């Protein structure tokens, strides 16, 4: 098996993505570095999810390039995916399987020492006592915690989150936020697409404001996010 590449930055260089005649991303240039928590902010349909898909190598840019520490995804091949983690809108879990079966499957797919990492992940998710219950019987918060651990099982270098706080109560939100901070502290690159400006305000270290596929601002997060969002994009 090819060893996983290491990188300290991800750079989008003039990345555009079109779906037929519809333009989802237009010449986005953006760099995220190890330790950053980059908040992708923008209204519905701005292109945040497409940008996440491009970074995750699930969608190819129509033009432009994405560099993972100076190398392109095409050059790094499947080994790059060992360093990427994604938690999407949907949770990427099989509801018919138990929490343990879900994590075991993905751990083995990533070639990890499944038993050890799965037990630790179940502990972190607070689901050790429900490990053998089917995911279909879990609440939204429990599923989200499990999905988060699934996405991070292999300790990714680039962790991508698309609306990770949707449908969570305050306690679960704070657990997820703490996990993202811990990831950034461990020198991972964290990219979060969210609509929750109040939450993002205390969490992200950089913001990328996107509208209609265009990058309107890329700057350090220094508080007052709602006002800056309103100024760049409109009412929030």
């Amino acid at each position, binding site marked *: *098996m090819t060893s*996983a590449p290491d990188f300290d930055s991800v750079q989008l260089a003039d990345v555009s993505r079109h779906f037929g005649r519809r333009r989802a991303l237009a010449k986005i240039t953006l760099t995220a570095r190890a330790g950053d928590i980059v908040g992708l902010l923008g209204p519905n349909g701005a292109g945040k999810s497409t940008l996440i*898909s491009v970074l*995750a*190598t*699930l*969608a*190819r840019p129509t033009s432009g390039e994405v560099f993972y520490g100076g190398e392109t995804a095409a050059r790094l091949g*499947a*080994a*790059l*995916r*060992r360093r*990427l983690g*994604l938690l*999407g*809108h*949907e*949770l*990427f*879990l*099989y*509801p*018919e*399987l138990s929490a343990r*079966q879900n994590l075991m*499957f*993905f751990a*083995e*797919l*990533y*070639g990890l020492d499944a038993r050890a990492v799965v037990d630790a992940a179940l502990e972190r998710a607070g689901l050790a006592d429900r490990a053998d219950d*089917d995911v279909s019987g879990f609440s939204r918060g429990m599923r989200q915690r499990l999905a988060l651990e*699934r996405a991070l099982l292999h300790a990714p270098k680039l962790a991508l989150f698309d609306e990770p706080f949707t449908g969570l109560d305050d306690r679960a939100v704070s657990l997820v936020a703490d996990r993202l901070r811990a990831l950034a502290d461990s020198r991972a690159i964290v990219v979060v697409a969210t609509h929750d400006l109040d939450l993002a305000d205390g969490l992200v270290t950089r913001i990328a404001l996107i509208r209609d596929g265009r990058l309107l601002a890329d700057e350090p997060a220094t508080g007052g996010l709602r006002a800056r969002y309103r100024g760049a994009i409109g009412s929030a």
Partner: protein
Amino acid sequence: MFVRTALLVLRKDFAIEVKSREILYTTLLFALSCVLVFSIGFVKQGEPLEDAASGILWIAVEFAGTLALGRTFERERYAETLRALLLAPASRAAIYLGKMLGIVLLLAIVELALAPLVAILFRAPFGAEPVLLAVLLAAGTIGFAAVGTLFAAMLVRARSRDVMLPILLYPITIPVMIAGVRGTSALLQSPPDTATVVMWIAILTAFDVVFVTLSLWTFEPVMTE
């Protein structure tokens, strides 16, 4: 790693099916109903229409297979787990192979129930050459599943996937149907025309080699948006 990944995906699909039994039951019921309905039309006063058995067997397999393909990928679409599979560092061709083997296994179980039912209702002497029949069914099923798995995966995000799957799948799998039906007909002659059966098996095998190779080769690019 390639084979291990394919077996992991197969084992995961098997574990889900053992728990839900959803696809097996619906596919089996659909296939058996199909044969029963045909028997009402093609068996008059206890006498089946000549040569009907082979066509009905393969139509039931193809229709049941289409249903199984749709349901299998609907399961991967529901929670976007197909994206999680594609994001794994494993070979995407291995993921394709695992999904395809799951369909083949499911259809093999359906065929185990279908063949005796067709034999009874249409007085087809399938028992005369059981090994040749098994090889013929296996070769045809692999060819059908090879093409079907690729198309079902490609269409998983399409809104009209239920309509598009048969429209794309049936024209391309016509050689499978022709070879399967002709081969089975030769098998049902008295005595069985084994030379003709072997020829159709060879044609099916060639189809399998071409389409499994093509699908393994194209799965990675077609699954990247």
